[in-house]
């Protein structure tokens, strides 16, 4: 097995294969890594419902196996969760991760928050995730189904498909849903990184031939650790692999490009540039509802300063500024590292679109330097504010 090779794979365990969205390969690779001692713990999402899951770090193979199945309406940030455990412990941990999670992990590694050598990352291709409560509303109002009846969801060929307990499948075009204000989180719509090739393995259903749809995962080996993960799972009897065809490889690229093209359109619509003369008034207006809870910093995977950070020293209940210096300092501080995971937007109690504001601040600089944060461990280029 070599880095760069692509395979189709599936779990050998019937229950996992059935529960998993694409043959249960990811779950089985993680479970095998734990059982055979390749890692000491695994970070997975413990499913509560189709709209709710809790990130857990476990050393139980059974808990890993129970986590099988995809959750598109559970936008949990996993990188920060991983860092809290790994920062100083030095344990070997395996984790799943969407592209933004993986990029967050790289940024954390750049700040010594995690040891990337001890972190085995199974990346998941991602067309986007959806906010759970809005998704429930969409199911009631657009799909006209009870959210509790949903057993599985899937994004395929530009459609959002829900499967119900009684075996029905209802599909709607994502474009149309998003025009109505439903569908994917805004961050996901304009995200360009759809396949996490900086993970150790990049897994998903893009490129899986029609006959094996839902029964197999397309997996790209991206690193030596990726080889370790796959070979360990094969040797442990957890998975079976076969080489991916050229046709499958090309089909995967085509889907990726289509998603990126769509993201370009959204980027133009959602992230227009701010005229220089309006910048101050724009940021004053956008940030006027901030209540200073600090949730945006708490969830941010690239914030590594802790409690004694320059931005937080600018928050005082005795001040009554017209603009938050806390946010302005954060904009500057993470302009070369924001991975646009959108966690800050998700948790803001005042519903300030923090991630979009950050993107509108830093994307002009990132694009000028052709730099995408969180893809490598190299130092970013020097950004200057003009």
């Amino acid at each position, binding site marked *: 097995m070599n880095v760069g090779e692509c395979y189709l794979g599936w779990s050998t365990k019937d229950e996992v294969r059935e529960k998993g969205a694409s043959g249960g390969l990811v779950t089985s690779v993680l479970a095998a890594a734990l059982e055979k001692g390749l890692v000491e713990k695994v970070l997975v999402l413990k499913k509560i419902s189709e709209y709710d899951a*809790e990130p857990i770090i476990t050393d139980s193979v059974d808990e890993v196996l129970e986590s099988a199945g995809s959750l598109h309406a559970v936008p949990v940030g996993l990188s920060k969760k991983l860092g809290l455990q790994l920062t100083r412990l030095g344990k070997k941990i395996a984790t799943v991760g969407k592209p933004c999670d993986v990029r967050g992990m790289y940024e954390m590694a750049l700040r010594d928050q995690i040891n990337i050598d001890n972190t085995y990352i199974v990346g998941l291709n991602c067309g986007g995730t959806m906010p759970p409560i809005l998704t429930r509303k969409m199911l009631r109002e657009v799909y006209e189904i009870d959210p509790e009846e949903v057993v599985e969801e899937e994004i395929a060929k530009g459609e959002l498909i829900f499967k119900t307990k009684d075996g029905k499948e209802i599909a709607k075009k994502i474009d149309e849903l998003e025009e109505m204000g439903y569908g994917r989180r805004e961050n996901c719509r304009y995200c360009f990184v759809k396949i996490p090739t900086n993970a150790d393995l990049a897994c998903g259903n893009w490129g899986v031939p029609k006959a094996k749809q839902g029964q197999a995962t397309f997996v790209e080996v991206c690193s030596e650790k990726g080889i370790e993960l796959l070979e360990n799972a094969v040797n442990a009897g957890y998975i079976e692999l076969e080489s991916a065809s050229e046709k499958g490889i090309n089909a995967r690229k085509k889907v990726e490009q289509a998603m990126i093209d769509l993201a370009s359109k959204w980027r133009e619509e959602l992230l227009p540039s701010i005229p220089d003369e309006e910048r101050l008034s724009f940021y004053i207006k956008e940030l006027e509802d901030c209540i200073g809870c600090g949730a945006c910093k708490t969830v941010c995977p690239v914030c590594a300063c802790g409690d004694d950070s320059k931005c937080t020293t600018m928050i005082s209940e005795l001040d009554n500024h017209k603009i938050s210096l806390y946010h302005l300092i954060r904009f500057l501080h993470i302009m070369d590292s924001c991975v646009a995971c959108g966690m800050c937007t998700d948790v803001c109690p005042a519903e300030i679109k923090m991630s979009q504001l950050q993107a509108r601040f830093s994307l002009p600089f990132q694009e000028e330097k052709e730099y995408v944060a969180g893809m490598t461990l190299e130092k970013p280029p020097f950004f200057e504010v003009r």
Partner: protein
Amino acid sequence: MKSVCPGCNFGCGLYLQPKDEEMIALDYRRGILEVDFKKGSEVNEGKLCKFGVELPEYYANKAVSKVDGSEVEFEKAVEEAGKRLAGKDAVFLSFGDSTCEELIALSKLADGKIESGLGALSDIDETAYMCMAVGIPYEDIEKANSIVLINVDPYAQYPLILRRILRAKENGCKVAYVGWRKPRNLADKVILLSPSTWIKTLAELENELSEFLGEGCVVISDLHPHVHPAQVKTALNLGKGNVLFLKPFANLTGLMLLKSSVSDDRTLDNLISEIEEGNVKALFVHEADLIEVMPDSERVKEALQKLEVLVVQTSRASPITEMAHVVIAPEQLWEKKGVVVNNEGRILEVGGERTDGFEALCKVAEALGKEKIEFDDAHKQVLEKVGVDVVNEYTVPAYERKEYPAQSIEAQESDIETALVKVYTPFTWRDMEGQYICLSINTIASKGIMKGNLVTVGANGNEGRYPFRPDDVADDVVLTFGRIDIAKENITPLEKIENTIWTEEKEE
């Protein structure tokens, strides 16, 4: 594990995970828990205010069981509480900072007479009680044509209501605010209250706000043991049933539902007076601290010392646990099995598995020869009271609201010219607000106070020196969100300022 934030009665969902031992030692943040944001929670969609974000800090402060100041086993404290309360005509006080099941067990122990401290609301017509206890669903705020905020500034009090109001505004809703501090740019109309006329202003609001009232109008106010009845009556009159009262304790709605009335309750001030006069000799305080919640904490401390028996059942260490004869320290809220009911009447599982606090109340009741209740039976009673068969966090049960008559408000005028105004946030009740005052820009400019100065304020024969914040308050108002040590009164938000020295002294 799934949990509910204990910071107020909003009912925000979150996940809590115990840290492993190595991480407790290594993590710079205090506490044994980590918070995760529960985006699948219908109430808050994963959003939390500062209290929720820093919840592990709050939970790090654990009480220990004690008898006469010495640490004892939990069971010993429970046994001792039973012995000491035997033959005493005790008063049982709770603000509802626990599960409904525990409150039912407490009610059994108290022969149905749990004091809530809401005595100031006892003369409000009983037909309006259900509207005080349970508000309209949060989702209805987003659909409102107009919103009237009565002394609720969402930026400082109950921040999770802010997003609902902002969404309503996006839908074209108009917002009016009546209170002591302008809520930034949230409201289309602002009526700032003035100390000399504030009750008169409330009484005459129907005319002032006529363009906001009527169909599709939602009125939002707060409700707590220190709220002035004129404020609650105003909200009831303007809202005509379309009212949401925001409450500072995790399950005050649950307590109010289980009690069915507060007409026999005392105000906290009256309770302290009766302790001072020797009419109350034994007090059982459930998950609350009178010293923290009353403005004049020294008076409360002196009164509590006169009690023959003071039993406190609480999971949180606070000043009252230093004074109690018996402290029963059960599991914290996140560890409890049971449910709470939030401001809108949604029934929510707390998420834990333990029932130590419930069992302790049952054992004390048994020791006093009272009826015991099983946990499952208590849970069934809660479901019956709320009118549901199962707990479902995604639905708000339907509550029967009666029409109520207009509540009369006596339009008083006061001779107070400049007042210290106390505005309560959920954080005030846990003594977590800073001790600073808010002054108008006019006051600051006219007195020439410089940034960093301390201001000396005199009231009730005492003086205090406080840092200040420039704010949108009336010129005759010195506003505080924190428990400020020169304040003495509860119920009235105002205290007459006797003298003010605009010092040049810099803040240390």
